[in-house]
């Protein structure tokens, strides 16, 4: 048990900080509901960051830290799926990666080269091209897309399907962890500046306590996500995803409530994190699905 970063992990995180810097500014003009991180994707590809989980000194735990760090940015790339799930797929599948659950629109589908298809308990993999996919307008702050037709897919064995589902949960939790922290920080800035009744909103205890509770939940998500990435254990993955979806549901609501009307605008960036969280909340069966998975693993339900 050791919670300090290794030298390799610290070095990687510093490199990511430098890489992320130019992408940190928050857009103030109208930018649609999502902000695709095309420039960021180029940088990550050039630096071979999508493959860090395969480097023995780094591994999935460090990849999860990277996913978390990059989720702080206002723009988005399929980092979680590419860094954490792709290395676990049987065989070599090209990125970008997307997931289509029960035929619904999914994140990054319109630009994906590989799609993970989830239909109930079944999972399969398909390579797709531009002719198979199309973008959809969405309120979620991810570029969303859907399949125009069902591509030829390779079914996964039950064992592989369970493994992929487990890593999808890790990816979800790691990304949610970064999004939660960024959203809380963004709301915290606003509450420190915005004054009503002659004092900053952040000095009212009703809001201070609510913010503190959000922070505690987000911290729990972080530790569960990192542990799940480190152990690769399906039970840990289910726990992390459950706590992530539970916390995201509550925190997305609370933060918007505390920001008042400003949080409803696209001028304020809060939605860039909360509307990614809301997309994650629905995945893999939502909280009920995660709870069932947790109970199966922990209590043999």
């Amino acid at each position, binding site marked *: *048990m*050791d*919670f*300090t*970063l*290794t030298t390799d*992990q610290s070095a990687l995180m510093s490199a990511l900080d430098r890489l992320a810097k130019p992408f940190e500014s928050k857009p103030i003009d109208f930018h649609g509901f999502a902000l695709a991180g095309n420039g960021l994707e180029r940088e990550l590809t050039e630096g071979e960051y999508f493959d860090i989980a395969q480097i023995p000194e780094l591994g999935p*735990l460090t990849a999860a830290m990277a996913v978390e760090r990059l989720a702080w940015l206002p723009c988005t790339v399929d980092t979680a799926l590419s860094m954490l799930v792709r290395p676990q797929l049987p065989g070599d599948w090209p990125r970008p990666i997307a997931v289509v659950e029960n035929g619904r629109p999914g994140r990054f589908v319109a630009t994906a080269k590989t799609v993970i298809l989830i239909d109930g308990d079944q999972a399969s993999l398909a390579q797709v091209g531009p002719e198979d996919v199309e973008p959809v307008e969405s309120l979620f702050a991810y570029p969303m897309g859907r399949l125009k037709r069902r591509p030829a897919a390779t079914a996964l064995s039950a064992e592989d399907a369970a493994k992929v589902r487990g890593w999808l949960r890790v990816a979800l939790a790691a990304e949610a962890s970064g999004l939660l922290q960024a959203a*809380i920080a963004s709301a*915290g800035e606003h*509450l*420190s500046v915005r004054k009503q009744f002659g*004092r*900053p909103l*952040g*000095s*009212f*205890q009703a809001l*201070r*306590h609510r*913010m*503190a*509770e959000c*922070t*505690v939940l987000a*911290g*729990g*998500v972080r*530790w*569960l996500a*990192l*542990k799940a990435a*480190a*152990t690769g254990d399906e039970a840990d993955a289910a*726990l992390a995803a*459950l*706590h992530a979806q*539970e916390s995201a549901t509550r925190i997305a609501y609370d933060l918007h409530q505390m920001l008042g009307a400003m949080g409803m605008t696209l001028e304020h960036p809060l939605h860039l994190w909360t509307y990614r969280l809301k997309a994650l909340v629905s995945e893999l069966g939502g*909280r*009920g699905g*995660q*709870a*069932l998975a*947790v*109970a199966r693993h*922990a*209590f*043999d*339900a």
Partner: protein
Amino acid sequence: MDFQWDAEQQSFRDTVRSFLAANLPPDWEQQAHGPGSESQSAFSKKFCAALAQAGLLVPHWPRRWGGRDADAWTAFILAEEMWAAGEPRGGQYMNVNWIGPVLMRFGSEAQQDRYIPAIARGETIWCQGFSEPEAGSDLASLRTRAEKDGGHYRINGQKIWTSYAGHADTCFLLARTAPGKTGMSVFLVPMDTPGITVRQIPSVIGEGDIHEVFFDDVRVPESALLGAEGQAWEIARAALSLERVGIPRFALASRMLRRAVERLKQEGRYGHGAVEQSARAHAACEAARLYSYQIVDQRRHGTPTGPEASAARYATVMCERLVGEFVVEHLPDALSGGDPLLLAHHQRAIVAGIASGAAEIQLNLIATELLQLPREPR
């Protein structure tokens, strides 16, 4: 970063478990577990003496005081196993967690020689005299006075909610020697000093747990003062920082959740609602566990624990709440004679957000220190 126990840690945990298996009475889980009750206090003395013999009472203490300088993980693994077993050390957990270490840091040589060896042998019980009827969360407003009287102090006042006071040998007492925060001092007061009256407070949390303690013209020698006059705030902060993540409550909560689920399954009562709620409670327990481990890791590296300790504490309060509510809703029979251990857990769980500092005070600290939000106007 590494989430696995190393071989030494695992083997230490096994040692503690074997000790528990060999030294707890066979009907341990059927007994009433009020940690301050007469029978528990008596048992804790036998049990802690045996722990001391086995080198398992104070392994994390320095050699000079009977320990082996083991690291913070050793202390915490020990605490997890003890608490998960229903805390057979009774009130003595407090001795080894913070009273001993605080005496080592602030005590005079005479005080150390008088009190520390008895703690390390497992044969003495302490109580913590901080809270007063008018001074709960606002501890600095306490009124119990200690007035200099020649080579003595004369103490007058009242403490409340004092755990283990009924069987304690010594009180770690906070009293006022001057006005204000800097006017508080710590006294080590033998409980058989004339003028001390202890009254048990009947409660829903178990027999012998909380008390009122009255001090009427209690005379103690100057040598009972710990550190200097006015040093109490600093000493209490040191004590509370050890206490805040002192009890691994998640360890018992998690075990009790499993126990309740097993029972529901056996009886065919583990339905849909129970499945979901148990999963949530389990996630909360594991979040609290990792949060606490983060603080233990800071201690191990000698990093001063910051506001994350408050976050860890709050996460623990949430996990106790969810497990407690799970049992009340799905296995209410446990509180009606069905399972003494689940009942004992319930009684401990309901105070998680109150004892050793209320949860809202932790939220205030998180808001100010972790989130850097503007302070409330005073």
